[in-house]
């Protein structure tokens, strides 16, 4: 096995930032939710890589928890999006901006 941990770390870092970028530039709230999932997943990659490097299972178990939390967030988020679509007819995040000032 010759892949340095750094490579995984770098990949996960890039994926994390791409996820952040998705939240910053997309207006479709479903895609924003997906981007947040991508952020969580990049963290998972880092966890697994470190777990492998430390030869400890801890990191793998943590991923398990992160996936569970991700699922919970998706459930809440999607039902919120459905309810917003019902009342407004679209899910454009920029149109949800009545509260300001």
């Amino acid at each position, binding site marked *: 096995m010759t892949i340095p*941990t750094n490579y995984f*770390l770098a990949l*996960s870092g890039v994926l*994390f930032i791409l*996820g*952040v970028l998705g*939240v910053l530039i997309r207006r479709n*709230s479903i895609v*924003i*939710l997906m981007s*947040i999932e991508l*952020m*969580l997943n*990049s*963290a*998972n990659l*880092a*966890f697994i*890589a*470190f777990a492998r*490097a*430390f030869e*400890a299972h*801890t*990191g793998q178990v*943590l991923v398990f*928890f*992160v996936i569970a*939390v991700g699922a*919970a*967030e998706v459930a*809440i*988020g999607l039902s*919120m*999006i459905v*309810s*917003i679509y019902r*009342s*407004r007819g679209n899910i454009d*995040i920029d149109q*949800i*901006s*009545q*509260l*300001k*000032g």
Partner: protein
Amino acid sequence: MTTADLNVALPFIIVAAWACILLVIDLFIPADRKGLTALLAVAGMGFASIPVLLRFEESNRAFNGMIVQDGFSSFLQLLLLGVGVISVALAYDYLQRRKIVKGEYYTLLLFSVSGMVLMAQAGDLIIVFLALELLSVPLYVLSGFAAKSNPESEEAAMKYFLLGAFASGFIVYGIALVYGATGTTEIEAIHNVLISGVSNLGLLTVGAVLILVGLGFKVAVVPFHMWTPDVYDGAPSSVTALMSVGAKAGGFAALLRLFLAGFPEIAANLAPILVGVAALTLIWGNIAAIAQQNIKRMMAYSSISHAGYIFMMLPAIVDSDIAPDAISAALFYLFVYAVSNLGAWGVILALERADGGGLSIDDYAGLGERNPGLALAMALFMLSLIGVPPTAGFIGKFFLFRVVLDANMIGLALVGVITSLISAYYYLRVVVVMYMRSGDPQVRSERWLNATLWLTALGTFLLGIFPGPLLNLASRTGLFGLVP
């Protein structure tokens, strides 16, 4: 797992289990008698406080260091359970008025409180993360509780949820990096690795910063605060009351424990930037509040500024001589802030009308004539939030500033003093409008609400005059394994 483990986790277990049971019981309670659910929720939190009180000053680790019990956690758990009880009392009449009565409200509130209670004990980053989610997810839902009748509530929920999930993404990634740097997620173990010098400082620092960003979002410090005014404004007021105190206290519990017990050395490296965040928060929160016409938005900025005051303790804990004082000052201030702030929200709830009106500061005109008691209470809360002696807020601020001065952060102390002078401007505007303008405010008077107001007003006043017992309690609350 042993009985001892369970004993330590008892407050959390009671609240969470009670919430699960209540979820089922509520199904059998008819819609017009949801007051019973509220009462049961209060009872649950009451029970949960018993083990806290019984073992207030014990120090224990449990579940392999996942949770710890110490004076710090006990103090915060008591505070949070109290906040939960008061939030139920505030919500009861409000929900009926706004016609959003659902038994799940109290259940979700209980779940959120269970997350806060767990957060106070968190001894491991994974618990920090899970407790944070457990306290936040119900709050996301509660923010949207009035969504059917009020699109603003829906908007608040969406904003809070998206940004909250975004922030927790940062926390998770931060935890991953901290794990990568130290090979562990247990807070004390992180510190052991750190002082033994085998950690990777770069990874650890970046991880700490990412966690700081995520928790900074929860407690609403600048520049992670932007969600606060919109969410506080849109969410049902009774939820906002809980959010402004409970979520903040939970976030600070994690921040303080992490930076003191986990990586004080990193905190020392970051001290200048922590000072900067605190100063910016104080300035922004206090100045932006001045331009607000809506009292909920004003209170939102006020809560940002108070987060700034407590955040001043973060760079102060770097010095191990000052750390105990800093912790007790933060705890005391959290308590005082909770009492005064919940009281103020109680008054806001009493004035909010069924159609969601009555939230402009101008709507408070004439309150001094119409309802002197309520106006007096509000004036007291405002004075306490400014920090005018001899109210509780003054003692709290005094104590905070003293710690800041002890830590030789004169500049920060100056910013704190000046901004609290500025804050008088917007808080007193409410007082002026109440007493010096005539109007016809519609005031709701209800047993639970009034009881809460009496209690908080009395607390605000008495804690200003006899802060001794609480100060003693706060100063005896060491952190596990660190401060005696």
